[in-house]
């Protein structure tokens, strides 16, 4: 079920809100109702895969309890070892249990998401093996990357000292909560641990949640979907002109931002409506001065996940240069791979790996932040690299990406019919999208009470317009839906 669908907005949401606020908090009734609603939400589009999610919940519940028990046994000194000296590894049961838990979660995502890609690649690289390697055709459960990473973060946090959740239904609620189930943000257990049992929704929080939801909805319906019209056409085949190639790339750059940040806004808004406070996932990434800064503003929950669970355990940046390069390469390879089972995503991740590694090794980030002149050159360069990266991300194959990039850099005529037509069609939407992608509306001079109240009115009017788009365009999937 999509947030931007008639059945969610007008049937599911009012029903769940009504049921949630009618039920008392006692005996976790509100939580169990939310869990049931979340499972129903997931089962709406993927009835078979809800069992995969339930299996993941059960597995991680059991794994966390085992890890905690073994961890506490180690810390109580039940099994002292003579080798407990600095630099010597102490293979405890907790670490083994963690390894099993991590392997189990990675196996889930590995099979459903990557098996088809791996078998196809092996069969293409080694034709003689085609008889031995059948081409698999697993269907991708929606949101598997998100809820698996949430589960992984949970078991690792338990290993690191967090108390495991005793109530399996509450753990299920954490993993399956519908606002962030399908496309994030990736919520850490520590963020919502206390909120699971001790949250109270104030009216201010609820209304803030409603507003946030509507802003996200408007972003998706009015900006992302409009940008998608041009992007889809530009990426349908090799663009016929330099200007259409760039127009398509810029439109996709804006589409993916408003699509994903809009979804995150809706998720955060929905969370607030039910008393949860999730962390922010986007912070106007397109105003970034450096690529490093971009990844501190884009999909922050994923970036921090890889930082805390991959980069830091590998040593982070407190290592020699060679090891630093290795660590960054691993993180960015995995980041690309996480986004999809295709070489384009891997290449996209590696592109960022190269850029960020270069910035880190050269100290460029500090230099740019300290110099306006450097910023004037490097900020546009950063934006261009981001756009080129999105071309890789969007293209169905590396070859198609190559054609599009070649078109962007002069392999085709400068202007053609579609460029003329679409640039005229998109004048106002592009202007609005460019303004919306920068923190212009947060400027202090726009913070007067009447202006803010007027802003609420404008957002509601846009909400009605968004409903009109919804009614006319029944199909409008989210890009990150399939991750």
């Amino acid at each position, binding site marked *: 079920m999509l947030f931007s669908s008639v059945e969610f907005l007008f049937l599911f949401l009012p029903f769940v809100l009504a049921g949630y606020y009618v039920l008392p908090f006692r005996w976790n009734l509100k939580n169990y109702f939310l869990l049931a609603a979340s499972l129903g939400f997931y089962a709406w589009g993927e009835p078979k895969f809800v069992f995969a999610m339930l299996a993941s919940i059960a597995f991680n519940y059991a794994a966390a309890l085992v890890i905690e028990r073994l961890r506490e046994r180690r810390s109580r000194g039940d099994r002292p070892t003579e080798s407990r000296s600095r630099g010597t590894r102490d293979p405890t049961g907790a670490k083994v249990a963690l390894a099993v838990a991590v392997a189990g979660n990675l196996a889930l995502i590995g099979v459903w998401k990557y098996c088809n890609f791996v078998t196809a690649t092996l069969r293409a690289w080694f034709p003689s093996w085609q008889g031995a390697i059948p081409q698999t055709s697993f269907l991708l459960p929606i949101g598997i990357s998100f809820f698996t990473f949430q589960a992984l973060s949970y078991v690792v946090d338990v290993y690191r000292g967090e108390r495991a959740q005793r109530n399996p239904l509450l753990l299920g609620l954490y993993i399956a909560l519908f606002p962030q189930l399908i496309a994030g943000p990736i919520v850490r257990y520590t963020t919502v641990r206390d909120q699971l049992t001790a949250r109270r929704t104030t009216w201010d929080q609820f209304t803030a949640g409603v507003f946030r939801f509507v802003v996200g909805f408007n972003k998706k319906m009015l900006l992302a979907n409009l940008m998608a019209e041009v992007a889809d056409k530009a990426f349908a085949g090799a663009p016929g002109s330099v200007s259409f190639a760039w127009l398509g790339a810029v439109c996709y750059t804006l589409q993916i931002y408003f699509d994903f940040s809009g979804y995150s806004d809706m998720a955060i808004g929905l969370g607030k409506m039910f008393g949860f406070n999730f962390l922010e996932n986007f912070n106007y990434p397109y105003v970034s001065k450096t690529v490093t800064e971009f990844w501190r503003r884009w999909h922050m929950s994923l970036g921090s996940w890889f930082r805390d669970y991959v980069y830091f355990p590998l040593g982070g940046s407190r290592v020699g240069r060679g090891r630093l390069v290795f660590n960054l390469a691993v993180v960015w390879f995995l980041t690309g791979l996480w986004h999809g089972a295709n070489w384009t995503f891997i290449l996209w991740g590696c592109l960022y790996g190269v850029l960020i590694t270069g910035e880190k090794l050269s100290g460029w980030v500090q230099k740019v932040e300290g110099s306006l002149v450097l910023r004037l050159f490097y900020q546009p360069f950063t934006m261009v690299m981001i756009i080129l990266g999105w071309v890789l991300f969007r293209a169905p194959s590396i070859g198609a990406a190559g054609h599009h990039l070649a078109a962007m850099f002069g392999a085709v005529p400068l202007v053609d019919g579609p460029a003329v037509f679409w640039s005229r069609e998109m004048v106002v939407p592009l202007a609005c999208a460019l303004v919306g992608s920068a923190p212009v509306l947060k400027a202090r001079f726009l913070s007067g009470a009447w202006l803010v*109240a007027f802003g609420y009115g404008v957002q509601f009017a846009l909400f009605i317009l968004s409903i009109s788009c919804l009614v006319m365009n029944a199909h409008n999937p989210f890009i990150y839906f399939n991750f």
Partner: protein
Amino acid sequence: MGKHLSIRYARASFALAFLVTVSVTGWKLLPACRRSVGSVGIRKFPAAVQKELPGRFPYKHVFVDLNGGACRAIGRRLCNERILFKDGILGYMYMPRSDAVGPYIDATADFARRVEERGVSFLYVQLPGKFALDEDLMPEGVEHYNPNEEALQAVAGLAERGVRTLDLVRVFATTRTDVEANFFRTDHHWRGRAAFEATGLVARELAEILGDPALREPPELDIGNWEKRTLKQAFLGSHGRRTGRWFAGIDDFEYFTPKFETDIQRYRAGKLQSQGDFEKSVLDVRHLSRPIHVRNAFGVFGSDRNEEAFFNGRARSKARILVVKDSFANPMVGFLSTVCRDVMKVDPRKFSSPDDAMKCVEKYRPDAVVMVVNPTAVRNERFRLSSGLPVLLSPLACDKLSRTGNVAH
């Protein structure tokens, strides 16, 4: 403090408005959900609901208007897959295709040959599409393409094969002025006035083919003998219902009733449906009383139902005409019925096989078959009226042939 209070009140009002909007709309959508569950069951319910709900959205037409208005306000020419041409007329965005005309010509020529082998005359009438020949109406940057060009290729190809043709493209759509005068702004069809004029031209051709002087400029096909009724701002056509009234406006609608007396019987599948004057038996003015956002005013001229027949005992011509048509020809069939005794219409879009057209010829035994189609027929598989195989008649058709070969009376 005052500022924060104002903002809180504004946000609270916002939230309340949101809750009321989604709840009330959801309440109105519940009957559609109950119907979906009842018709398909729980397992297929999600898919059925997803398909059904947008169409049953309360006040959908208001939202369609709003969407179209917003598109227009920001200067867009494309709205819900419809494009605003340079002259402000709505239409489809056609794309060139090179492979459609040849097979269409082959199938139509074969159909014409089979008809004539049975001693029945054949006339192919090419109606125009909503594009002027002498001008590129597409907005700047959109590749020029004109389906009338495909239609003219079809006419030329059929003429080369010896099929008698009547090219109405160059009559009604040569210039932009022609298109504006003869077509609706918001619908893909042409106006009743153009259809009336076309009927006169077809009758003239039939007069020559059948050697029937009664069909050559009959007074029944003189516009002076008809009363025109115009309804201002009354028709939001097929394109307009997708884009709303604020995107390209609303059309006026006119229809015609004869000043002379008529008594026409309308049959469907051999059963009498109505009898009386032209307005009662041929037109269906009930369409005009429906709300504008669901009003298909063009339906006044008759439906797309297959195998309708009109019998006019008072007609000056005894000709039996079988019209193989699409919706453009609905008005023409009605007008022709004021002159010809028997006019039968069949719609290939309702056929189950390419040879159904030939079976209708066998069944109705007309004096002439007139194939009247607009340019989209060239690309429509349904209008390839011959499979090239021998026609096998159903037992029912054989039985009818052994009696009168006549289903109208």
